[in-house]
């Protein structure tokens, strides 16, 4: 019996469709891709913590359906790792075709992990007709994801930058460096916090602090060495050791994500919030969730910026459809709508100089409606550290603070 049972399980788990059809799209011929894509359903796995983005995704789904006859289902994730886990499980279970994820909003360690395991389809990005408008020179973040070259395995669709915001009527002089943030917390106990480190934004905050405190920023562009990790991160832990006792809830609990951070500011539980969406504050003001007296700013030494990408798993069922969706999201129309601060406010990945004058005009929406000016100064953008830093820092943080 003890030998039989594992055998049965093993047998069941090895089951996979014996007949493998050739479904890889012929990439050279875009018309062929479009033809195959028609009628497909694309399960787009995307983080769903921001309603403005969810609505944008819904709009894009509608457009793609209208233009190309592709049905897009937004599979809402509270964390991208859920979809990554799904792909890995499918690989493990032997489902090399007909996977449940067609398109995934991804970047950083998740991309590194999937690419490393060979679980991504590609390279396919340079085959997209609209990719020729992408600003690969002026915006290096769209070709290097957390220092890792994307090599055509993921298509950029948005640029994000860490932006802080606060209520002018309550906090006249917000801290303009992370060091100042610590001092502010000491004079205003309980009024500062950052999201859970297992959340993308929370981890980014730690990296922002690390970048500001580390002596030589170039070491962050390489994977961390075991020998150096403790020494290089020591200032970060010292910073957090000082911050936590004076942080919100005495550093014993952390908001889950950017939306909860925003809610805390709206409820006046904290004084400073931040987001990866430059227009977060203005969107929330427009929705009536934040008072009109909220302003946003970038830290004096600059803040981390990165690009949001789209990747296609190796076993995706609707690869052509996924490519067409990615291509649509690169189109001037989609990019312009995304940059509209009343829709989302995400920065474009396109080079406006490459666009026709008609298309360029799409981006010139009058800014009168917005209270907060989107931050666009390229010089304020700091590059992401290597993806391994993020995973190591999260592990170390959990080791230090979660077990007590």
């Amino acid at each position, binding site marked *: 019996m003890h030998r039989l049972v594992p055998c049965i399980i093993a047998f069941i788990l090895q089951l996979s469709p014996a007949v493998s059809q050739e479904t890889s799209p012929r990439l050279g011929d875009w018309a062929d891709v479009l033809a195959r894509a028609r009628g497909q359903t694309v399960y787009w796995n995307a983080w769903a913590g921001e309603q403005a983005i969810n609505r944008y995704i819904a709009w894009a789904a509608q457009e793609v359906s209208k233009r190309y006859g592709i049905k897009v289902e937004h*599979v809402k994730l509270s964390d991208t790792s859920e979809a990554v886990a799904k792909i890995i499980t499918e690989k493990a*279970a032997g489902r090399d075709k007909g996977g449940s994820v067609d398109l995934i909003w991804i970047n950083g360690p998740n991309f590194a992990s999937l690419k490393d395991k060979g679980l991504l389809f590609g390279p396919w990005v340079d085959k997209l007709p609209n990719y020729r408008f992408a600003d690969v020179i002026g915006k290096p973040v769209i070709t290097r994801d957390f220092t890792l070259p994307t090599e055509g395995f993921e298509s950029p669709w948005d640029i994000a930058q860490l932006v802080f915001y606060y209520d002018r009527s309550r906090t006249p002089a917000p801290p303009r460096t992370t060091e100042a943030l610590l001092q502010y917390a000491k004079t205003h106990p309980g009024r500062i916090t950052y999201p*859970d480190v297992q959340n993308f934004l929370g981890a980014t905050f730690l990296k922002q602090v690390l970048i500001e405190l580390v002596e030589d920023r170039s070491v962050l562009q390489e994977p961390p060495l075991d020998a150096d990790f403790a020494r290089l991160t020591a200032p970060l832990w010292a910073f957090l050791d000082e911050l936590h006792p004076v942080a919100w809830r005495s550093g014993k609990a952390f908001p889950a994500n950017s*939306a909860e951070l925003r809610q805390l500011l709206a409820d006046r539980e904290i004084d400073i919030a931040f987001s990866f969406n430059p227009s977060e504050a203005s969107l929330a003001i427009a929705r009536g969730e934040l008072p009109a007296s909220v302003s946003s700013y970038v830290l004096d030494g600059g803040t981390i910026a990165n690009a949001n990408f789209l990747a296609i798993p190796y076993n995706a069922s609707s690869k052509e459809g996924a490519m067409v969706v990615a291509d649509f999201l690169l189109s001037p129309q989609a990019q312009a709508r995304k940059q509209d601060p009343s829709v989302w406010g995400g920065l474009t990945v396109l080079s406006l100089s490459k666009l026709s004058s008609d298309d360029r005009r799409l981006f010139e929406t009058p800014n009168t409606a917005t209270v907060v000016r989107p931050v666009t100064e390229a010089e304020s953008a700091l590059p992401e550290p290597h993806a391994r830093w993020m995973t190591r820092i999260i592990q170390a943080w959990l080791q230090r603070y979660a*077990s007590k």
Partner: protein
Amino acid sequence: MNPSKGEGLWLRLVPAVVFIILVVPTACGLLGVFLPAFGYFPALGGSEFTLQHWRLLLEAPGLFRSVILTIWIGLASTVLSLATVVLLFAQFHDTRVFWLVRRTLSPLLSIPHVAIAIGLALVIAPSGLLFRFVAQFLPDLDVPPDLLIVHDRMGLSLIGALVLKEAPFLFLMSLAALPQINPTQSLATARTIGYTPTIAWIKVVLPRLYRQIRLPVLAVLAYSLSVVDAALIVGPTTPPPLGVAVFKWMSEPELRDRFIAAAGAVLVLCITLFGTTLWIGLERLLILLGRRWLELGSRKQGAKAISIAAYAVGILLLTFILLSAGAILLWAFAGNWPYPNVAPDFLTAATWNTNSRQFLWPLFNALIIGGAASLLALAFTVSLLERDVHRRTNTQDWMRNLLYVPLIVPQIAFLPGMQILLIALHLDSNIYSVIAAHLVFVLPYVYLSLSDPWAHFDDRYRQTAMAMGATPRRALFRVRLPMLLAALLTAAAVGFAVSVGQYLPTLLVGAGRVPTVTTEAVALASGGDRRLVAVLAMLQSLLPLGAFLVAVFVPLIVFRNRRGVRTT
């Protein structure tokens, strides 16, 4: 002499089918968890038995605290829920207040765990309703107090949310069990020899009642020991209870974490076993102590304290449930609503209008899954019960025990294994599999809900019908089922409510592709748009409530000219 043969093939097969539905998924799921926990799972790259994953599990940050928390939350919420029920019964049985409590708690039972947790968070958070009320009188509270209430490290708010849900559940289970022990006579006897009604109830009725509701109590304990959905919303986070920790490992992008999750799932199972054993030990201890107290013969001592406590828990329970429901309702329609205002500046349907795409599809899914699962469960239940009638044998005892298997084995302990099996068999991520998975959890409740009215049905109606030449099928469809319409609809509504509340089976089996209002509510609850979360929580509560309204009003309408049919 061998009277009625002629039992159809279906009726002969149905116990086997039900056995397969209830036990096979659980067993396969457990196997799919045990093997990887010890390293063996060829498909995931583990080909030999090893204890390495256990080492990694035990070294995980905060594991010890997680385990302690889990046991604490499980025991505390079960003790409190049970104590609440005992107090309410002891103090208010046979009174008009009791009738009132009974009327108010019944519909509240349909509010799913997730909605309760969301509502409670909206009430007790530092920026929640309670502090907004207090802030009206304390000017210092113009900013919310810096208190860790929701997600508190002791799990108190999680315990609160669990009690708000489980106490009404146990209350209704007790109500259903009470007629079987016929308390009126023994109560009267105890009263005549000088016991106060409260003490008499505790000494005379409770011991026998407890025996009747023991399995539901153990189900509550098992649920509380392994809770994931409500814990994600109000439970401790650093570290979380073990169920949540396992759930998080499952969604980690590293394969190694899958093995740790499997080991963790086995640990959850062990803790459930340990907790149950501990509970049974506590039962023994209480019986010993209780017997001495019973024999002391004190007739009035403690009655006053019990009375005060009963009023306190009754009022607390109702207040918090009503406040939670109110908070959900207000936030679902709130315009601008800054702290410390106790009411929104204005009410608006904007959240409903701008987000309709986000909740209509999940709403539709929940409706379809709940409808299909509860109707299937009803069909199986009727078949099982009819088979008993037909066979004239009583399978009820073993069936009842079997039915508790999916309720007592923690979901998080076998669903991970089931998920991998389903993926391997290409059976995941479609609505049919989700319905089948829900059926596992819906069927027990439907059966438990229908079997009593079924047993109380006057069998002479069937005998009369058959003596007049009606076939068994005709007697069933033309006599028994129509007469039991109210009970059938109630059972279906219970099943529907259970289905709507399911989080883990929907998420894991549906692979995220079959979203329901529940999965969406949990996904957004931890920090999503508070208004949209409230909308989802409201829809999540309205679905089962609607089902119960159907169960109440359809029989009233259908039988409006038939006074002799029981419509409740």
